[in-house]
């Protein structure tokens, strides 16, 4: 009999009950809650007269609607304000811990979970947000759910699931200087496509992944959903355990030792069999830039906008042509000649301290180009912001002409006041370049933090390796 995959180990540890057809009631250890996908779930609980089964397993934070400018006057948009106030009221009523908007620990839900040690190896982690895959970086089984399932987890602490297929994405070789986890993520999506991971749980492995920091692994797992996979994960190793140690909600003392003993088993066995294996050579990965309206529409900084006639199928020819029209781009245009109007450094993909250090190292001593209307840096949490300020990163950004903002989801999805205007082109460290994602008519190009900072200073995309 072959060994077990990491996915199988995590799954087995959480099985409560199995139906005859294999449908499984899976126990959920951690439930992250935010203001957008929870109000209707709490309303459902109230209508049915139910209470959360384990309020202690849930943690809430407002992030999508919060302003990234001065918060002393609260939220100006009354509809956004009501949604955040509804979260406050629901958490108070049901006894759920919430990091409110004025709490230093407030931030993007997928940043604060790991930062506080609320996300731990071996856990099942869910949230009404597709980027919950981020938490798989800790050797956790983490995936996004809809609002009906948010209500279900609140009421029962469980979810009905069927096991996913498993895919190992193995990255070996030497990663070039200036090439980051974000570039690996986009290169993988370029390889397998935006639906390549549908029905799978992805495990990222290989020497390059082992050498990544936990924050880099989070960036990679965050983007698993953009490859269609609900869950992405990385095996636990010393890097994971060092990161978790000492965090506010991490176990202490004897419980810590007991936890580490289990966590050290959370890797796929050497003889584990995956349903699919994809291998990438790190040496071939260059800084990536998306050119279209799906994350799979991606090329390298030295590439050019493709010709729809070269698309692999009739449906894709149609999609590429439509994407170029939306993006205002001509086939054959070199990526490095595309000018940008705005730059966004932030989001659950790239707003942690290492991302900000990477961007600041490029921005240091430079100025935002005159054609760039706005370059903004939005830290992932209040604590990331505090750390960055302690390191002087905020001054580097401000001196270069970037705006230094308060933490939140911001212009990744533009639910607050931060958005693109129609036709504006943005170099963005976020995760989705869908039509209208950053504002109706806005044109998004996904890049790494270093590439975004370089684009801000050059006024167009530029190879950060030679900048």
């Amino acid at each position: 009999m072959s060994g077990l995959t990491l996915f199988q180990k995590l799954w087995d540890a959480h099985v409560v009950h199995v139906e005859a057809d294999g449908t499984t009631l899976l126990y959920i250890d951690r439930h992250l809650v935010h203001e957008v996908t929870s109000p209707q779930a709490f309303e459902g609980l109230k209508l049915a007269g139910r209470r959360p089964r384990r309020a202690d397993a849930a943690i809430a934070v407002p992030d999508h609607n919060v302003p990234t400018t001065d918060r002393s006057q609260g939220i100006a948009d009354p509809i956004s304000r009501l949604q955040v106030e509804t979260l406050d009221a629901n958490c108070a009523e049901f006894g759920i811990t919430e990091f409110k908007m004025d709490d230093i620990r407030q931030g993007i839900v997928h940043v604060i979970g790991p930062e506080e040690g609320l996300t731990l190896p071996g856990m099942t982690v869910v949230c009404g947000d597709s980027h919950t895959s981020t938490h798989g970086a800790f050797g956790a089984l983490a995936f996004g759910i809809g609002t009906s399932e948010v209500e279900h987890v609140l009421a029962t602490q469980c979810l009905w699931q069927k096991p996913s297929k498993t895919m190992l994405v193995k990255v070996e070789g030497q990663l070039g200087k200036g090439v980051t986890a974000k570039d690996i993520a986009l290169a993988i999506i370029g390889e397998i496509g935006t639906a390549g991971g549908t029905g799978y749980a992805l495990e990222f492995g290989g020497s390059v992944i082992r050498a990544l920091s936990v924050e880099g692994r989070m960036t990679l797992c965050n983007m698993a959903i953009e490859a269609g996979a609900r869950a992405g994960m990385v095996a636990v190793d010393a890097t994971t355990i060092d990161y978790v140690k000492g965090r506010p909600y991490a176990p202490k003392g004897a419980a810590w030792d007991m936890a580490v003993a289990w966590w050290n088993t959370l890797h796929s066995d050497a003889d584990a069999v995956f349903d699919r294996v994809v291998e990438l050579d790190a040496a071939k990965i260059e800084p990536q830039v998306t050119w279209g309206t799906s994350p799979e529409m991606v090329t390298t900084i030295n590439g050019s906008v493709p010709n729809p006639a070269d698309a692999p199928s009739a449906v894709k020819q149609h999609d590429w042509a439509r994407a170029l029209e939306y993006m205002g781009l001509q086939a054959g245009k070199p990526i490095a000649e595309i000018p940008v109007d705005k730059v966004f450094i932030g989001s659950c993909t790239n707003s942690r301290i290492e991302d900000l250090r990477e961007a600041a190292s490029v921005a240091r001593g430079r100025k935002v180009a005159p054609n760039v209307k706005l370059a903004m840096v939005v830290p992932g949490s209040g604590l990331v912001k505090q750390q960055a300020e302690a390191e002087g990163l905020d001054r580097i950004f401000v001196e270069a002409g970037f705006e230094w903002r308060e933490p939140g989801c911001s212009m990744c999805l533009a639910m607050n006041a931060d958005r693109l205007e129609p036709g504006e082109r943005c170099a963005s460290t976020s995760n989705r370049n869908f039509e209208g994602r950053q504002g109706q008519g806005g044109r998004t190009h996904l890049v790494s933090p270093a590439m975004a900072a370089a684009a801000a200073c050059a006024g167009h995309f530029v190879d950060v390796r030679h900048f």
Partner: protein
Amino acid sequence: MRAFTTLNGRVVPLDRANVDTDAIIPKQFLKSIKRAGFGPNLFDEWRYLDHGEPGMDPATRSPNPEFVLNFPRYQGASVLLARDNFGCGSSREHAPWALEDFGIRAIIAPSYADIFYNNCFKNGILPIVLDGAVVDRLFRECEASEGYRLNVDLDKQTVTTPGGEVLAFEVDGGRKHRLLNGLDDIGLTLLQADKIKAYEERRKVEAPWLFA
């Protein structure tokens, strides 16, 4: 939840792959704390020429005459014909809420994004998977014939075309049962309360830090 048994409905073809949930219901409408009322803003950015914001009266807006949902021949459609990877992106359940509120009860596509697919079943919408070549043919038939309707029978797991062709589809048994009977999951799950309790008691010993 509304049960789904059979449906004979007009079909509207949306000929694009990778339609994401941001397109199905744009972010500004996610600020609502209600479950209903999203239908007028389904596909808002494609459906209207003006920019939509919550609270706008649809009657005062400018529909985009080139968007397929606005074609007179497709008014009243309850079956959405779509392409690969429909519903990709965000987990927002507002996407099936908007489809349901608009009147869509069944979707036919070669593939769906996982979270969206799952969310449909929680809201009385049947997402049907048919082979890409078959879907291609349905697109051609639907575009060629005004008033094109399909008949869907969940119990028999069939889609029947106006020409009498019967197309079989697969659906998970548990999901089918719940959809046919309009059952909500929570009540069924609570029947397993003893097992949940037993699991928790065991885990408190094995992994006490998870209950600290």
